[in-house]
């Protein structure tokens, strides 16, 4: 665990050097100063020195996240618009093991580099310069975040992005849980979370990381990777199945080869039998036998053509060729008629589907009317006798919402049925079209054969021509079949590769994690803090009703806690969440840095009750005895400061009008040490007075 020891800003203006510093203690403390004092400068300096400007919505190295006083014009002494020549800020962090770290970064100057002064537990000092934002995690020697993660003893976690690539968890992903900035920070839990990096489930992962549940993160990432891989596999399975179906339909084979369902289901189906086996089983097509048959037929015809005797008295060749062409023509005609009927059926089905869709839409609108009450009929009565008019009298019905819902369900069932029928009809049309093409090819060949046979002179030539034409047709059929077999083998290869890949996914084990007790610790702490902060929806009696969902979103008795209570409860909700996470992490030895920074919690709602509740919380043991450091920047009235101090809560109320002040000329400074307690220094070791300029 670490704590902030000092925040410092310094620079040079055209009127001289200026500086301001804030020294912090362990535990809870309130920095109370009037508006425009410069509290935001100090708060921003923390984010800036840690290279967290993307979290505040600014581009890398863009110092405009600071107020103008730190960059352009500053009010110093008598001058209200002194020009800033250079400026920088630094923070000092102390680790609980005795190590200390000072990070300094230019605001006006070179903001790309952070100067590091690292002091070991035995006092050894080491200086280095690290790059603030470029390759901050990947640069082993120069990356600031790489260094900070190492110094803090935080392990790096590889996450999965929405693009399917890997990304790490960054400091700006976890900081929104302990750095609550005054503008957006209070609008919701992790309001400053950066989603544009595209890490999947980053909000949940950030919480688990701070709770130290790194095994749970690994398991989560493994699950995500598996889901991504499964999605890709399912997509691939659908594409393969589509190609298989197209191939089968093209050849007129009715074989079901589906790529739908879960990986396990597809795997079970695809490993049960191969494409060839399915073809044999479902369409009774044995490719090997067919090929063998064609080869035998070709061999027989070749023999007939080359060596077998020819009967000169046989005059049946022209009649046979003619008969074959006629049969094929008739078959083509029948198939064309069948195809027309199928197309017509498809067109009718399309209209039916359109009508069903419309009726579902209408009934859904009507259901909306019935359930929401919009457009409900007013009391209708006869204008003459003023008696109620019952629609039943007119043979009309007013349906109930349940009846309309039942109608919608039945329409949806009809639509599904019609869709399935349509799919069957489309498949049948495809198969018929394929058959028609095949028959057309055969007819062309038969017509060619007929022409050759009729052109031949004499029965011998006629028979030779017929045999030659038959041989040509058989060889072409053989070639076609060989091509189809090759295609099927290619697809079978793809299926085998898919099966192998799917089997490895199914076998990936996901390690169990110790998340449960960390989660419970967080939930317990959250209950305590919500109650202590006075969230209006929380009472001692309903604490047990508070639960966390999978995304760590709190629900109270099944309702979203964020949407319960008053407007000022939003700030209490955010504060409780951040403080509870720090407390829970501390309890379960998590990775929380041990600092919670709350900027202007009282400005979120000017209502006096909210202020009162927050001040009451600060006086409580829960706030004062917290082992982590809580730094609150706000403005308190003198009597509020006095009351808090009386209860033992540390309040720092600085002297002077502004955080940044002119430094006395060097000649007048007796020693270097003296300058540390100049005006503008917020040192808690100095005596604190109630008469400080803390009035708002």
């Amino acid at each position: 665990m670490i704590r902030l020891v000092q925040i410092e800003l310094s620079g040079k203006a055209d009127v001289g050097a200026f500086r301001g510093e804030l020294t912090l203690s362990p535990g809870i403390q309130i920095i109370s100063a009037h508006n425009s004092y410069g509290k935001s400068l100090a708060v921003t300096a923390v984010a800036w020195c840690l290279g967290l400007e993307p979290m505040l919505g600014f581009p890398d190295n863009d110092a405009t996240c600071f107020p103008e006083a730190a960059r352009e014009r500053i009010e110093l002494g008598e001058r209200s618009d002194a020009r800033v020549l250079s400026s920088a800020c630094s923070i000092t962090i102390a680790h609980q093991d005795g190590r200390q770290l000072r990070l300094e970064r230019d605001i006006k100057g070179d903001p790309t580099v952070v100067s590091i002064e690292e002091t070991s537990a035995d006092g050894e000092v080491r200086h280095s310069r690290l790059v603030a934002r470029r390759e901050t995690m990947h640069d082993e020697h120069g990356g600031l975040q790489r260094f900070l993660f190492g110094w803090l003893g935080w392990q790096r976690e590889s996450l999965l992005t929405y693009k399917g690539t890997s990304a790490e968890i960054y400091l700006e992903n976890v900081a929104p849980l302990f750095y609550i900035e005054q503008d957006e920070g209070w609008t919701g839990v992790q309001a400053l979370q950066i989603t544009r990096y595209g890490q999947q489930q980053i909000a949940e992962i950030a919480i688990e990381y701070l709770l130290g549940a790194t095994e749970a993160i690994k398991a989560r990432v493994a699950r995500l990777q598996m889901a991504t891989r499964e999605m890709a596999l399912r997509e691939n399975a659908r594409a393969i199945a589509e190609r298989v179906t197209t191939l089968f339909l093209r050849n007129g084979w009715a074989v079901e080869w589906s790529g739908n369902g879960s990986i396990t289901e597809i795997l079970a189906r695809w490993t049960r039998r191969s494409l060839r086996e399915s073809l044999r089983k479902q369409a009774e097509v044995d490719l090997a036998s067919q090929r063998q048959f064609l080869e035998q037929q070709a061999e027989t015809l070749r023999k007939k053509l080359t060596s077998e005797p020819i009967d000169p008295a046989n005059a049946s060749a022209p009649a046979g060729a003619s008969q074959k062409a006629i049969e094929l023509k008739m078959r083509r005609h029948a198939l064309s008629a069948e195809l027309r009927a199928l197309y017509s059926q498809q067109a009718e089905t399309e209209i039916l589907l359109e009508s069903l869709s419309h009726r579902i839409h209408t009934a859904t609108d009507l259901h909306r009317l019935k359930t929401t009450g919009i457009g409900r009929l007013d009391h209708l009565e006869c204008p003459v006798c003023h008696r109620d008019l019952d629609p039943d009298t007119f043979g009309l019905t007013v349906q109930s919402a349940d009846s309309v819902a039942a109608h919608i369900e039945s329409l949806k069932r009809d639509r599904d049925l019609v869709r399935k029928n349509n799919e069957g009809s489309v498949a049948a049309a495809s198969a018929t079209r394929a058959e028609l093409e095949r028959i057309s090819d055969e007819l062309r060949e038969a017509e060619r054969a007929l022409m050759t046979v009729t052109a031949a002179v004499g029965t011998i030539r006629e028979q030779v021509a017929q045999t030659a034409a038959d041989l040509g047709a058989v060889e072409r059929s053989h070639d076609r079949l060989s091509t189809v077999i090759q295609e099927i083998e290619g697809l079978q290869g793809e299926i085998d590769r898919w099966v192998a890949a799917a089997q490895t996914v199914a076998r990936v084990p996901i390690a169990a994690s110790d998340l449960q007790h960390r989660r419970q610790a967080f939930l317990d702490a959250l209950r305590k803090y919500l109650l202590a902060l006075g969230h209006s929806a929380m009472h001692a009696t309903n604490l047990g009703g508070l639960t966390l969902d999978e995304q760590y979103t709190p629900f109270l008795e099944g309702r979203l806690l964020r949407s319960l209570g008053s407007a000022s409860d939003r700030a209490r909700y955010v504060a409780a969440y951040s403080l509870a996470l720090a407390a829970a992490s501390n309890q379960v030895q998590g990775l929380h840095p041990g600092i919670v920074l709350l900027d202007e919690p009282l400005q979120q709602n000017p209502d006096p009750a909210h202020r009162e509740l927050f001040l009451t919380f600060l006086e409580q043991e829960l706030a004062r005895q917290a082992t982590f450091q809580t730094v609150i920047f706000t403005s308190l009235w003198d009597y509020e400061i006095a009351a808090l101090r009386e209860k033992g809560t540390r309040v720092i109320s600085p002297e002077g009008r502004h955080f940044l002040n002119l430094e006395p000329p060097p000649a007048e400074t007796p020693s270097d040490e003296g300058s540390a307690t100049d005006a503008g220094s917020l040192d808690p070791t100095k005596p604190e007075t109630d008469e400080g300029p803390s009035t708002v």
Partner: protein
Amino acid sequence: MPNPLQDLTELLGSSQLRPVVKLDRLGASAVYDLQYRLFVIACSFMRHAKTELHGIRQIQSARLKLIQFTASRPWLLAHLVEWSKSRRDPQRSLLSSQRFRRAFLGDTTHDDVIAFLFANDVLRPHGSSLRSGSRDNLLSQLNDIAASSNLFEAERKVLETLTTVRITNDMLEGW
């Protein structure tokens, strides 16, 4: 002539199958709901009725019946357009209007709703036409609700398209 119901009865009788009717899975079509019909009639009337003297709105009864019938069955719009285009060719006109005539004659719900609106004095009969009654604000209210709540979008789209389709008295005759 084949009788499918008879075929089904015989089929069921010849097997061990026992027909079960689940009433909870049956729901009357929304087309027969009074509220729905009122919305469609209101939108049809407001879009297609002509404003006469003293702000009274009027429409031919048969025209309203045809318009609302088409509006609640948008897939028939193409057939109506074809019918309208073929009005000068009696044979084509007869062929393209068959579907309408057959279905339209059986739609008595519209007549019942009109009778209901007469009884409430929302509409008044005026010869072969319908006129707005003393409570015609019901129709404008329903029309406004449909537009503001984005209800029955397909029906309203058809009503809009029908403003460009010529519906002659010849087409309305016999109804």
